[in-house]
């Protein structure tokens, strides 16, 4: 485990160096290789050295992991090598979408994992470890924080996935610019629906902790600990709301990119790129994994700045690119081409 922390530290530094070298013409190519080496180190370090903090177990299912890695590498290398030079941006968009989808899938699996976890056990273990007595007041920041990161990862990941796929299709020529009247209202409504559903679900879940001892007093998330608290099993509607958030996020991603003109696509891809960075950072939060956290936040911040710089290079403002196309779809796409 100690060795793995050092590996993660080295990988984080290579990401930093890689980004730095990528922003200078002479060192750019080497920078890419430096970052790639760090990534390889982090991935193989995780496979062989990772230990579950709760059970101190090493990872298993190596056959699945390696076949996934090999299949992904082969498809990735072949498509990236075969693609024409002119089609590079759409390739970036496609790969970005894959990263978003990965973050989305992680959130889905972790939600189901969360729903089936026995919290009683974890909490009493924590209490024993801290040498607290039965009367001790135990705070519950973990499940709520975990749930929020699961949701943020889910929403941002799926927006990024759906948006990148639309951007890919647009650069490909398979999807045409399309906008209908009042689309921005639909977009805002979707966004509000996502937020409201997420909060209501968070509330439902935080109310579904059952207190199994008479001594336990639940006072605004402050739980006086007697024998244990337990998560009541989620009803089917909880899962339904969770998947509704997923579907709405996907729909939002599609509608968000659909009206934007083809010439502005690189800016949008850069924005979605930084979104996926944030989604990856959520994974870092979830697993307390420093390399995911630093890598994700680094890309999130650098990607946002890069988006703004790209807009400036095109003599447009970000607001103009994102909102300007609504309603005036014809003028925006006409002016761009």
């Amino acid at each position: 485990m100690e060795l793995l922390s050092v590996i993660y530290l080295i990988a984080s530094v290579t990401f930093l160096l890689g980004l730095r070298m990528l922003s200078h013409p002479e060192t750019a190519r080497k920078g890419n290789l430096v970052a790639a080496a760090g990534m390889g180190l982090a991935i193989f370090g995780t496979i062989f050295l990772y230990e579950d903090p709760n059970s101190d177990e090493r990872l298993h299912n190596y056959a699945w992991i390696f076949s996934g890695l090999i299949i992904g590498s082969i498809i990735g290398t072949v498509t990236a090598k075969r693609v024409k030079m002119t089609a590079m941006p759409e390739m970036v968009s496609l790969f970005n979408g894959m990263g978003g989808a990965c973050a989305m899938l992680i959130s889905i699996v972790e939600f189901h994992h969360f729903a089936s976890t026995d919290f009683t056990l974890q909490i009493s273990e924590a209490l024993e470890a801290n040498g607290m007595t039965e009367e001790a007041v135990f705070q519950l920041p973990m499940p709520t924080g975990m749930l929020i990161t699961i949701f943020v990862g889910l929403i941002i990941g799926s927006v990024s996935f759906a948006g990148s796929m639309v951007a890919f299709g647009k650069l490909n020529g398979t999807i045409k610019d399309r906008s209908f009247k009042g689309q921005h209202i639909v977009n805002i409504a979707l966004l509000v629906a996502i937020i409201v559903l997420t909060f209501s679900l968070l509330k439902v879940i935080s109310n579904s902790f059952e207190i199994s001892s008479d001594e336990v007093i639940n006072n605004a998330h402050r739980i006086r600990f007697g024998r244990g608290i337990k998560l009541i099993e989620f009803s089917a509607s909880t899962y339904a709301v969770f998947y509704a958030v997923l579907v709405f996020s996907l729909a939002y991603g599609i509608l968000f990119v659909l009206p934007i003109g083809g010439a502005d696509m690189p800016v949008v891809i850069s924005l979605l790129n930084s979104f996926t960075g944030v989604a990856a950072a959520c994974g870092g939060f979830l697993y307390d994994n420093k390399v995911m956290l630093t890598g994700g936040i680094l890309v999130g911040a650098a990607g946002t700045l890069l988006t703004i710089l790209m807009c400036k290079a095109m003599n447009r403002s970000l607001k103009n690119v994102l909102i300007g196309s609504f309603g005036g779809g014809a003028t925006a796409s006409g002016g761009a081409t």
Partner: protein
Amino acid sequence: MDNILTWIAFHQQIIYIVILMIFVGIEVIGRVPSVLHTPLMSGANAIHGVVVIGAIIIMGRAETSNYLALILGFLAVVLGTLNVVGGFVVTDRMLEMFKSKKKK
């Protein structure tokens, strides 16, 4: 309010990392010339593929009877690897093109 403060205290290490990384991320690419915008975007795209580590952890922790986690986790590993490998290869090809253009 009490809750939020405890949460911040509990996670302060992570919060420090997040804040510092935001500034570092902005500083590190601050003076990028506009010709390098697309390769830099592509390189950053490959770096956020680090999310594949999360997918590997899921796969490695999943019990062999938990098909949902296995199938979705497997898919996540494939997609994440695609992001990493494809991202770095595409960036390399872009920069290769950049170099040959400069020589001419």
